[in-house]
């Protein structure tokens, strides 16, 4: 198809969700009942369009003229290629399932029309990022995604914490975005364009040092949006939003936008930039995994796990293999969305039927033994957890395997120290297996600890909720990505056209061995007298605070951002009040004193004289009287007069 044929899908893919947003938002509460179906229909339309126009073997670009200033002509370009094919399919598919799930999960909320409206707004902006044919277009939609994330995290605006979490997410993202914008503007300066068609040739003349700086600035956007160290603190808090939103935005799609961005600009990353990216990714991966070990909130475990997996994808980018990063992005989108939806089902099941102020429906300490009452949820959760843990025959195994292989290949080129990175990846994969085993056991096995509240009656979720979960867990099997469960180089990875497709046959075995070892460790812990320190630490105690990794807790909270900002703010405020304003005040008072001295000389020395003197005395007298009245205004008048004469003297002298 010619490129001009792609104006229509561009209009439709962006227009349908945007109209959906406007009509649902402005439609008001009377749309509450229909909103879920309308939203799902809009998304289904988008899914069909994405498949109908899918043409992965070619690149189609449509351009709109936006404006021309000086030498800069700015076009809004939208691009259809194999990357957009994959992302459009994932985004629409997960969004469709999440909206169907929400119809039941969110049932009865009084602002449902706004919920679905914001989901449509999110889709509009996410599709914009995916279709963006230049970094500027991506940035525009990048910010809009931030807005929809803000609106959805803070959806329950009457509660304090969600609103706070929403704001934290937006502001931390903005820090990354400022770097992203700087990178874009530098590219505009050095190459005159940010279009993905132009850039590969345009950057050829740039020095490697400059490219490293630009690459790292652009990576700043990824650090914010994909919750990388040190801007990752917002992601666990974003779990304050409704669970389906966490599944869609804060697990499967939006947070993956950073990875997508890095895949798009991979051609301009220098080796130095990649090393920095690798280190940041590794830190994030480890912090996420370690924090997930010690978390009791069912959703926050998954949030830390998302952070850790995003770190893994960033590590893959650092290995110079954006293809495996995209592969993991795709597999992760399905199993993580499946995990969140299943977790939502669990929360739904253990939510007390009457108000119980003490009972926390998201705390895993008060779950346990739920596999009998929630069989479907149990299966879905376990399958997705197995995929996340990287067990053979599941999708996560393949993509993780691919990244580890790339890591060893990279290390071979980078030198002996480089081997540390793939080894850390294997270790972190082990941790993943450990905390997922822990979570499955805490939620579904062991004692029925939810009986702590008499009002909890676990029940399987209604028919609109479990099919999406089931579908996502089926998609977490290996078969969809590669025919051979032990070879990651299946059709999916080939589809991504990697430059080299090597396969190290020992990697799957080492990786699985580590995974099983950690699962065994977790299993042994379940047999312990106090499994996972469940009993002794029911509530936060001093011992827990002394836990070795607890310093990490601090960085996810405000210490590293709010407190320095507050310090600078207060310093500036004091500076304003005590220096700038008081200098003016001081000059004013000084002038009045000078005026007194002059008027004294005038009266006693010059004495009499011409009319001018009389005038001066009168002015000085007025100034003096004002001083006694305490009218600060007059000081300024004198200041100005003084300055005026000073300048006059300067000019004439």
């Amino acid at each position, binding site marked *: 198809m010619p490129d001009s044929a792609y104006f229509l899908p561009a209009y439709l893919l962006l227009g349908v969700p945007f109209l959906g947003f406007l009509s649902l938002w402005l439609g008001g509460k009377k749309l509450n009942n229909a909103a879920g179906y309308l939203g799902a229909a809009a998304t289904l339309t988008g899914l069909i369009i994405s498949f109908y126009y899918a043409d992965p073997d070619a690149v189609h670009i449509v351009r709109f003229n936006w404006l021309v200033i000086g030498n800069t002509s700015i076009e809004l370009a939208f691009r259809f290629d194999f990357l957009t094919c994959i992302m459009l399919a994932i985004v629409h598919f997960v969004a469709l399932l999440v909206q169907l799930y929400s119809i039941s999960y969110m049932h009865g909320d009084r602002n449902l029309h706004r919920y679905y409206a914001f989901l449509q707004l999110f889709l509009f902006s996410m599709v914009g990022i995916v279709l963006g044919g230049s970094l500027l277009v991506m*940035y525009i939609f990048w910010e809009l995604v931030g807005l929809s994330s803000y609106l959805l995290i803070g959806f329950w605006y009457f509660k304090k914490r969600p609103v706070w979490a929403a704001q934290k997410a937006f502001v931390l993202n903005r820090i990354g975005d400022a770097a992203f914008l700087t990178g874009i503007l530098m590219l505009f300066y050095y190459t005159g364009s940010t279009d993905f068609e132009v850039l590969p040739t345009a950057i050829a003349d740039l020095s490697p040092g400059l490219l490293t700086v630009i690459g790292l600035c652009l990576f700043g956007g990824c650090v914010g949006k994909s919750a990388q160290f040190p801007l990752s603190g917002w992601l666990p808090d974003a779990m304050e939003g409704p669970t389906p939103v966490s599944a869609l935005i804060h697990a499967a799609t939006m947070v993956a936008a950073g990875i997508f961005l890095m895949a798009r600009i991979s051609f301009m990353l220098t080796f130095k930039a990649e090393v920095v990216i690798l280190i940041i990714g590794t830190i994030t991966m480890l912090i996420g995994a370690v924090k997930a070990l010690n978390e009791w909130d069912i959703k926050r475990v998954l949030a830390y796990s998302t952070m850790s997996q995003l770190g893994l994808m960033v590590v893959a980018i650092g290995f110079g293999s954006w293809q495996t990063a995209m592969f993991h992005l795709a597999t992760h989108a399905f199993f993580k969305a499946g995990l969140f939806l299943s977790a939502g089902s669990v929360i739904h099941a253990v939510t007390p039927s009457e108000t119980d102020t003490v009972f926390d429906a998201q705390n895993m300490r008060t779950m346990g033994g739920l596999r009998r009452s929630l069989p479907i949820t149990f299966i879905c959760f376990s399958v997705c957890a197995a995929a996340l843990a990287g067990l053979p025959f599941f999708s996560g195994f393949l993509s993780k395997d691919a990244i580890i292989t790339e890591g060893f290949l990279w290390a071979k080129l980078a030198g002996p120290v480089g081997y540390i990175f793939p080894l850390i990846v294997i270790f972190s994969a082990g941790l993943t297996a450990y905390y997922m085993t822990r979570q499955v056991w805490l939620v579904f096995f062991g004692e029925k600890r939810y009986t702590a509240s008499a009002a909890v009656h676990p029940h399987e979720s209604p028919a609109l909720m479990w099919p999406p979960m089931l579908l996502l867990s089926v998609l977490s099997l290996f078969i969809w990505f590669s025919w051979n469960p032990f070879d990651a180089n299946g059709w999916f990875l080939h589809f991504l056209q990697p430059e080299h497709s090597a396969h190290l046959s020992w990697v799957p075995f080492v990786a699985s061995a580590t995974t099983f070892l950690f699962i065994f460790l977790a299993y042994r812990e379940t047999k312990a007298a106090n499994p996972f320190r469940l009993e002794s630490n029911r509530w936060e105690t001093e011992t827990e605070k002394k836990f070795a990794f607890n310093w990490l807790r601090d960085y996810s909270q405000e210490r590293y951002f709010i407190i320095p900002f507050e310090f600078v703010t207060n310093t500036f405020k004091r500076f304003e009040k005590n220096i700038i304003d008081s200098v003016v005040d001081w000059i004013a008072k000084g002038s009045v004193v000078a005026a007194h001295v002059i008027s004294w000389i005038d009266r006693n020395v010059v004495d009499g004289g011409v009319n001018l003197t009389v005038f001066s005395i009168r002015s000085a007298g007025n100034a003096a009287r004002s001083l006694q009245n305490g009218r600060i205004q007059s000081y300024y008048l004198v200041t100005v007069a003084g300055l005026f004469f000073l300048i006059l003297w*300067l000019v004439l002298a």
Partner: protein
Amino acid sequence: MIDHILSLLIAIPLLGAAAVAVWPTQNTSHFRIIALVALLLEVVVAVVLYISFDNQNPGFQLSETKDWITLPIGSLGIVSIDYALAVDGISFPLVLLAVIVLLVGVISSWNIAQKTRAYFALYLLLSGSVIGCFLAQDFFLFYLFFEFMLLPMYFLIGLWGGPRREYAALKFFIYTFFGSLLILIVMIGLYLSVIDPLETARMVGIMGADDVIHPDLIPQIQQWLIDGKIAPEQIVHTFRFQFLGDPGNYLPGSLLHLASQYYIGDIPLRLLAFWFLFIGFAVKLPVVPVHTWLPDAHVEAPTPISVVLAGILLKIGGYGFIRIVDGFFPLEAQYSAIPLGILGMISIVYGGFNALGQTDLKKMIAYSSVSHMGFVLLGIAAFTAEGINGAIYQMVSHGVLSAMLFLLAGVVYDRTHDRKIDNYRGLIGVMPHYTIITGIAFFASLGLPGFSGFVGELFTLMGAFQSDLLPAWIPALSTLGIVLAAGYFLWTYQRMFFGSFWYQNGNNSVLTDLTAREKGLLLPLVVMTILIGILPGIVFDMTGPTIEAWLETVTR
């Protein structure tokens, strides 16, 4: 009418002011209706102006010129002051902005109850002077309008303001007056240095065949000037912008001639003159550290006056930078680009941090204005097409957004006379429409794409990056401003609007949602910020050709 359309634009509010002043009855509603009618007429004239304005024409349009004062003063030559008005791409968007904001201001003045005759007369006087400032093409005329704004503004803050109004009004007056003095000094210097070549040609008696002076004669006169062939008594001195901008019109050996050898200390006189002018307009913009009048003035001013102050008055500072400071001293401006850029950056960051630290809603907005106007200075300092177009766009955008923000702050203040952010919580529960519009205004101001704030920041920053005069770290550090903007707007939004409803002083019943009049004022502004945010070409098409030609002239 089209020949005198610009005079009409100035005359309508001034006639309105006179009408209010002498109106026979004491009926309050008569005064405000006169004011409203005057500004509606102004809008009609502005629409006609919009239709007749040619975007493609880079020069001055719809010019009106009348000899006003001609006075021979012996060896000092002949004083010539003209009544000259014109618009071009630089002033035109700002004139349109002024008309809109002034109309918004008069409608939001509807509830003014005390001394209404004086209020509306002063308001219309202010309106006329503001428009005059943007249209004047003669420095003397400009200065007249510029000074004339101070008087009504002083009284509007000082008489109708909040508890500390007298302090604020005087602080405002002193600061701006101090700035005006610096401008006056340079104006006199310029006057002594510049001639009107056409009038001088008439005086020395060279004319074309048809007894008309041809513009082609200018180079000849300039050559004669250099050769010293013209007697001092025959030299016609001028204040006209068009002559002040051309280095050929400067008297050889005069104070501000391009090759001037005058120094004060080690500083060349031209550079000093540049900085005097800069400081004069910097007070208006305002630029840190001469900004401290702004928060006080805003906090004490009544809502409509805050709207006009932030919406248009600040823009005269930016307009002055482009038209006058950069226009007459382009080399000095380029030479000083780095300090100017740093001042812009400091305003952005310093204003942002201060906004973050405020507990008073209006003060927070006032400091956000300091931060946003810093982008204007940054764009102008860059001296590139993107930067200066972006600066004008940012002024228009900030005019609309700050008008909105101050109207919104006025909404709660009208109801409770309480501006403390921490005294409110969960307003969404009782004022849902107010919450939505505030949300839009806040997100638009923090530079969300789709709204005008984004485009203004994008292009001023882009201009600063493109500039060969500014190092890249200046705009790079300025991006901190967009992070801070997200911080102070969202933090305020969270504290005031979300959670469960609570109001410090108990009397909740006064907190009612927006009235029809308030919505009628706010919604058009919402539409404007979205419209120019999505189609920024509306503004850039006006400014683009002019700026391109202007840059060619000044960087010659």
